[in-house]
């Protein structure tokens, strides 16, 4: 049960409040507003001005309280990430849920976080001292601390593919691929487990017919990531095979 609601006007004030025990940041409220047996206090971040999307050089800085729909509608958002956002939740929820809240609460079926993971998103976390944390490092433990922004690169090509029971259903398997001009290629997979997984982060020669691990390596990485990924939605065998197929399609999309 929520016992106190705070709406601080400054980041410092918010951090002071969040230092209290059993006190949590409130983004859109799409999850925290639900009844809970635990007594908690919430700190609403809406007045902190963290709802901006800014381009800075080759990076895009997304404020923590930017809503999913706000990002979806931004012309700065990569197309592949838009597709992933649209699958994350229906419109009403996208209008309220924030990007940071979605990261904090995500499970393996989060298409948005899968897309961010491929893009090697960095989280700015304000605590006693501010720090920048890789999303991939954050997800396993999700330490306390206030996420203030998420930064993704803009000079990369990206693709996203999924398989679900229906076009708008949560994915059984999803794959996001990002490729930097240098050839660095990151592959993230989702649809299973507690968080999307990083399947590959390495150099791939992007030139047609170029040397390097190319498609086979990407497919193998996708397959390996789902080695034991069996749950009520699909077998590991299916996920492995389909993830490889989807990874190849992503790679083909990037080449196109």
């Amino acid at each position, binding site marked *: *049960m929520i016992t106190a609601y705070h709406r601080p006007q400054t980041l410092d004030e918010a951090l002071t409040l969040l230092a209290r025990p059993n006190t949590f940041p409130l983004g*859109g*409220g799409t999850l925290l507003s639900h009844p809970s047996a635990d007594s908690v206090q919430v700190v609403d971040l809406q007045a902190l001005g963290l709802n901006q999307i800014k381009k800075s050089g080759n990076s895009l800085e997304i404020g923590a309280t930017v809503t999913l729909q706000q990002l979806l509608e931004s012309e700065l958002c990569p197309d592949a990430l838009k597709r992933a956002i649209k699958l994350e939740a229906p419109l009403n929820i996208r209008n*309220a849920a924030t990007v940071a809240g979605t990261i904090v609460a995500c499970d393996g079926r989060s298409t948005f976080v899968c897309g961010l993971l491929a893009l090697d998103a960095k989280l700015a976390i304000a605590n006693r001292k501010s720090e920048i944390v890789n999303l991939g490092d954050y997800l396993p433990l999700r330490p306390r601390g206030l996420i203030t922004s998420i930064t993704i690169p803009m000079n990369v090509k990206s693709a996203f593919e999924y398989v679900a029971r229906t076009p*708008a259903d949560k994915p059984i398997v999803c794959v996001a691929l990002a490729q930097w001009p240098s050839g660095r290629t990151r592959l993230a997979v989702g649809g299973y487990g507690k968080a999307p997984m990083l399947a590959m982060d390495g150099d791939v020669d992007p030139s047609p017919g170029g040397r390097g691990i190319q498609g086979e390596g990407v497919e193998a990485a996708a397959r390996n990531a789902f080695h034991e990924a069996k749950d009520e939605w699909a077998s590991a065998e299916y996920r492995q*095979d389909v993830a490889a197929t989807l990874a190849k399609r992503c790679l083909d999309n990037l080449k196109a």
Partner: protein
Amino acid sequence: MNITLSVNGTEHAIECAPSETLFTVIRRLGFYGVKFGDEQGWTGADTVLLDGKPVNAGSMLAAQAEGHNIVTIEALGEHPDQGWKKTEGLHPLQRAFVESGAIQCGYCTPAQILAAKTLLDKNPNPSEDEVREAISGVLCRCTGYLKPVQAVLRAAAILRGDEPVSWDAVNWDFGKPPEVGPEANESPSDQFASLLTKPKVVVTPQTQAWQVVGKPEKKVDAVKLVQGKPAFAADIEKRGMLVAKVLHSPHAHARIKSIDTSKAKALPGVAAVLTWQDLPRVVWSTAGQSDPIPGPLDTFSLDNKVRFVGDRVAFVAAETAEIAEKALTLIEVEYEPLPAILDSADAMKPDAIRIHDEPEYVNFADSDPARNVAAKIRIDIGNPDKGFAEADHIFEGEYSVPKVQQVSIEPHVCVTYWDEDDRLVIRTSTQVPFHVRRMLAPVLNLPVKRIRVIKPRIGGGFGGKQEVLMEDVAAHLTIATKRPVIYEYTREEEFIAARSRHPMKIWMKTGVKKDGTITANEMRVLSDTGAYGCHALTVTGNTGHKAMALYVGDGEYRKQPNIRFYADVVYTNTPPAGAFRGYGVPQGYWPVERHMEKIARALNLDPIEFRLKNAIHPGEYHPFSTAWNEGREPRPEIIHTVGLEQCVAQGKAAIGWDSKYGNEEWHRNVPSTKFQVTSEKHGTWNMEHGTPSSAKRKGIGVALVMQGTAIPYLDMGGASVKMNDDGSFNLLVGATDLGTGSDTVIAQMVAEVLGVPLEDIITYSSDTDFTPFDKGAYASSTTYISGAAAVRAAEMAAERIKVRAAKMLGEVEYSNIRLSNRQAIAPSGKSVSLAEIALDTLHKNEQEQIMGIGSYVSPSSPPPFAAQFAEVSVDVETGAVTVDKLVMAVDSGVIVNPLTASGQIEGGMTQALGYAVCEEMRYDDKGNAIERDLDRYHIFRADEMPELETIFVETFEPSHPFGVKAVAEIPMDGVAPAVGNAVLDAVGVNIDDNPITPEKIWRALKGK
């Protein structure tokens, strides 16, 4: 805490708890257009506009909304004529929803309209895809979204000033033969035709002179629903009303050794805690059916044993929901866990534990609780063994269908209170108000006459509310506390503690001659009723009664069909199954129509010709009517009207069957899937889905189906019609409009008889104190049974009107007077208005109240028929299947209202589509439900729908005054097998276990 909320332009100072959601607070302020659908926001029924954007009021704290502008449906339009005060009337969006038939139950309508308003405020000329995207946050289980999308496009045109907005809601066909080919339906007659398909009605000649019946009239309840008026069960305020909650079992099977409620009772704000020790031990069945219940009595309000995870353990009533929830955690229960049966295949094993060992158990027919058998059916028609012996080929196959949920967007909800006469009032969202009253009387130890059941508007039911599921909880607590009590299911309770469609394992055997003549057909079923036997016998009986009746064979076999239907309905420790639209028949048509497709292909026969060759003809007996009648004495029925061949012709033309079936080029020609994204700044654009064309194949499939119309010699409906001073009429029906439009179509028939426009009929349903008895809304019966009753009542009133008119006109013979255009007209041409007649009879001469009463029970159950077509794309690498188009051509007799009827077909096909590809309720090895919300249990959204097309091929059913048959359930029957057959057509694999999921196709393709 104190906050100020700006709602619809007015500031409201509010004291609320920090944990209160905007939903709770805004309804407390009286804005009842905001509805509860679920806690997580998947339904969107609780939509409000926050600074112009649709959000879920139940998924944000009230305090978060401070400083923002909140808009609810109440800010839009209102009734234009309020006595001496005139208003601007309804908002164009509201008008368009009313006029387009976009409202069925109306529970999600305010949310859809608000979401659409956001779009139109920014984009006055949206595309269909943009409209679908805009309302995609609001789930609708009734409409299939087609008419809401049409309504938004229509409103957009009106708001843009595109006058005149030409619009005919129906594509009428007065006898022109269907054109063949994919281009057949491309005949735009108005500006929306290129975007959206309208229902087609092939009109039967008898109907063309009617004034009201057969016309796309506006629903009689639409204006209140479109305004979000407090019309539903929960939309009521009672002083001192308590909130009920139920403690559900965490065990699949256990005895309750002890319960200590002392801590819960001591919690401030708790008014009552009830356990099995507090209540009289009355055994009953919760199945909402006529007396005697055709099933075992095996249920108690509370028992000392729990039989599934979610079963009832204790009831709590408290001042608030939070206190009640807290009290549940303070009840200390000691369980003795027992072995659980979770697989129906284990239920009848010799060493299986007995689930029902209570001495009060009352058997019905062949139920046998010692073997965990709730019902057993053995039907042999003709001589099946002889038929098999005469066959050239025997085809056998095994199939299965899953447990699925009704998912009415309004959950089960009721309010109980004592009135000033010490009578218990039960205001409940039910399909069966009269059964609720009769069945609860012994459970509550009250005589029937001291119970009043009020059925307000219902936010969808689909069979789930043909159950006295939870009214007893609130009633017991009102008796215990003397206070009003509201009990509203959470969405999780809908999944763990409501009813569902029976899952079944089915084995088929069919004997066929070389020429395709079916010589014998056999189905054996193992049906899982869950922990209680509600509807166990009748649902499974219908599986055979309808699905195995369609194909009788040909030639000599047609005269004496050989059919066998054997079923065992067993108890398991899972949530009980029950009634769900289709009532066992969808479970039957999955195996029958998959099986027929395989046989046709194996014998190299045209799948449609093979089916029609063996299908039942008019003038033949319904084969099962000679053998089975829901546990009662069978009475043979002749089927008079079968429009199946016309349905096939129309459906084939609409989907372009002849140009696609067997056309390899068409099967390979799959464009890459588009995926759309809508941007505020950039509108909608398409992004290529990465699936290469070479990885996809298209397929086309068909299924023929038949349903029933009411239960013969049993289902009874009553109605009364009373004339008012101005020549209008009160129509009182016990029938239960659960969003289907039955109030409207019944009123249309009454208006036709009385010669008045529909607006002169004031319809009220239903209240056990005021309206005549009706058995309720189930078995596709209301238009046929309750409609016939209302026609009889209207005819009685009409006769008195004519008698009085004859006197006023100086005519000798009254029978030649006809009623039309609010006039009684003599053959001479002289006329007198109904208003004048009313004033004369009520105030002036030989005063009398002109009224009529009628009731109707049918000696037959004339089946509707349909041809269901599906077109799919299959990704051969991943197994993903996309349903691209569904066409259903239906013979439902005469269509009283093409708008409401086509809404039934579109919505039914959409529910059935979920049954085909994604809906499934599963349990872990402890009996815990895996699906507990609408995230995991996915139902179709507006932005992922295939194209839907509805065609009505009218026949005139001679057993009904207006020639009608049923329409409500038949759309559930054919979609899944048609999709399964289309997948076979696309990629050559058979999926026999429903639903058709990507991994199943992938495994079949890989030969795994």
